């Protein structure tokens, strides 16, 4: 598996049969209740969320929804959330904090939606607010990149204590296509961009962004969704138990430092 090229992984992630958060939820949780709306504007189909039970423990889940067909994609806007989606996520996260339930975020989006209404309703503010609030949310947060983690729209569900990625998942500041188009003025060089961008789970583990890689069945998650769900369950069950044992002050300090230490720069001998 590990010999796959970046492009082959991207193809696996975009495979029509790749399981989505809607496939995993009933397989991972013993029971779940979906909740709706941000209490401010509306209900965004691109983000699902609710309360569930994982290995007996109550948890809050939040996830970006890739559609499996055209009908579903119409409802989920191809998994590109509007501000109300991010605000629904924040509402549910705050509720989880109140009842001290761990939060599990499933990331799977090409990015936040770029449109007129999204701008009018403050797409940037909605993402920023999540980064701000999740950074001190007083309950464990685990984020899992299921397929595609695209830009700020992914990061809005990615401020967490532990970030896991499925083996073939990618996480990037922009799509390889956008990268090639902006930096080289040539979108057709997307394969080349994908190779140099460092977007695979291995790359991100090396860069200190990702803590855990969850193995996929041979050939990709679509080949055996049941097996994939079991691997996911096993990881999540373990992570929830582990993070619940930490006291909150410690947990928040480690969460702060997880992001605090990311960055590469040089500084000639200290001295301001």
């Amino acid at each position: 598996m590990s010999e796959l090229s970046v492009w082959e992984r991207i193809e696996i992630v975009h495979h029509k049969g790749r399981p989505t958060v809607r496939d995993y939820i009933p397989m991972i949780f013993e029971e779940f209740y979906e909740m709706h709306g941000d209490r401010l504007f509306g209900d965004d189909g691109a983000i699902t969320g609710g309360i569930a039970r994982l290995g007996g423990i109550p948890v809050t889940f939040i996830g970006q929804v890739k559609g499996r067909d055209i009908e579903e994609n119409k409802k989920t806007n191809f998994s590109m959330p509007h501000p109300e989606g991010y605000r629904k996520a924040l509402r549910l996260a705050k509720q989880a904090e109140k009842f001290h339930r761990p939060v599990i975020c499933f990331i799977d989006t090409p990015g936040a939606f770029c449109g007129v209404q999204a701008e009018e309703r403050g797409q940037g503010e909605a993402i920023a607010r999540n980064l701000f609030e999740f950074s001190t949310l007083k309950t464990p947060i685990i984020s899992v990149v299921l397929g595609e983690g695209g830009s700020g729209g992914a990061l809005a569900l990615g401020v967490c204590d532990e970030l896991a990625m499925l083996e073939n998942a990618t996480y990037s500041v922009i799509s390889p296509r956008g990268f090639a188009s902006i930096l080289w003025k040539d979108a057709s060089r997307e394969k080349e961009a994908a190779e140099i961008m460092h977007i695979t789970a291995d790359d991100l583990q090396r860069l200190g962004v990702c803590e855990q890689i969850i193995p996929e069945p041979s050939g990709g998650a679509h080949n055996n969704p049941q097996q994939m769900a079991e691997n996911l369950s096993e990881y999540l069950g373990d992570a929830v138990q582990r993070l619940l044992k930490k006291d909150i002050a410690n947990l928040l300090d480690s969460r702060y430092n997880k992001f605090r230490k990311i960055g590469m720069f040089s500084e000639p001998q200290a001295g301001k």
Partner: protein
Amino acid sequence: MLEDLFKVVKSRMDDKAPAEKGKKVSIPSDLLFKCPRCKNVMFMDDFIGSAKVCSECGYHSRLSARERLDMTIDKGSFVEYDRDMTSLNPIGFPDYEEKIASLQQKTGLLEAVVTGECTIRRHPCVIVVMDSRFMMASMGSVVGEKITRAFENATEKGLPIVVFAASGGARMQEGIVSLMQMAKTSAAAKRHSDAGYLYITVLTDPTTGGVEASFASLGDIILAEPKVLVGFAGRRVIEDTIKQRLPDEFQSAEFQLEHGFADMIVERSKMRRTLSKLLKLHEKDGGLA
């Protein structure tokens, strides 16, 4: 996102004046200023004399960090933080070092943000000024780290912070590392906020992408200069999606005010005074002690 900004300005200049196409008069850029918003042409001396504000439409054009500091803070009060921090190349992007070096040469800056402590009409604060001449003030490791430290210093010293935001967004050349700076700076802003200190954001031209979607949108008070561009997605990206040309005021400071994402639009000539008054209101006993 970055390059978009240039293209938008250019293409809007072009399609606004179709008759002029082909017989374009070249304007010596050191003598005249042509407003990218209303196309008004001003003598450079007048433009500079009016603090780089268009006399016709009031567009507040871009300033260097040095110009911004000179017109905002008390003379001699600035103590710079982390002046010598420079970029590395986290994902080994081709020619990144060369690009940085040539911009350092051109701008006299080592990176796209200047941070430090100062007083504004004798009110102390930490100040952050982004400089769009340096790779459109995109946020990579250095910008993220310097801004994070500015928030941390302010928290430690119990100082308010004023951030003049300007940016094309995350710095693509640093890959995922640049995206993570959004989380890092926002978390530092949260700690400053939880400690009970004031954060004032000033949105200047342009504030977009990953910077608009992180610390720039998180001020207790959000000010904006007139007519500047503020938004999340690149205008061209949206126009491509909806196959329509967007109105000029879309994503302007005025648009943000109307939609509830900015508190006040403040002209450059009143900025120093406004900031000092707001700082004073948040001092012990409302600054009257």
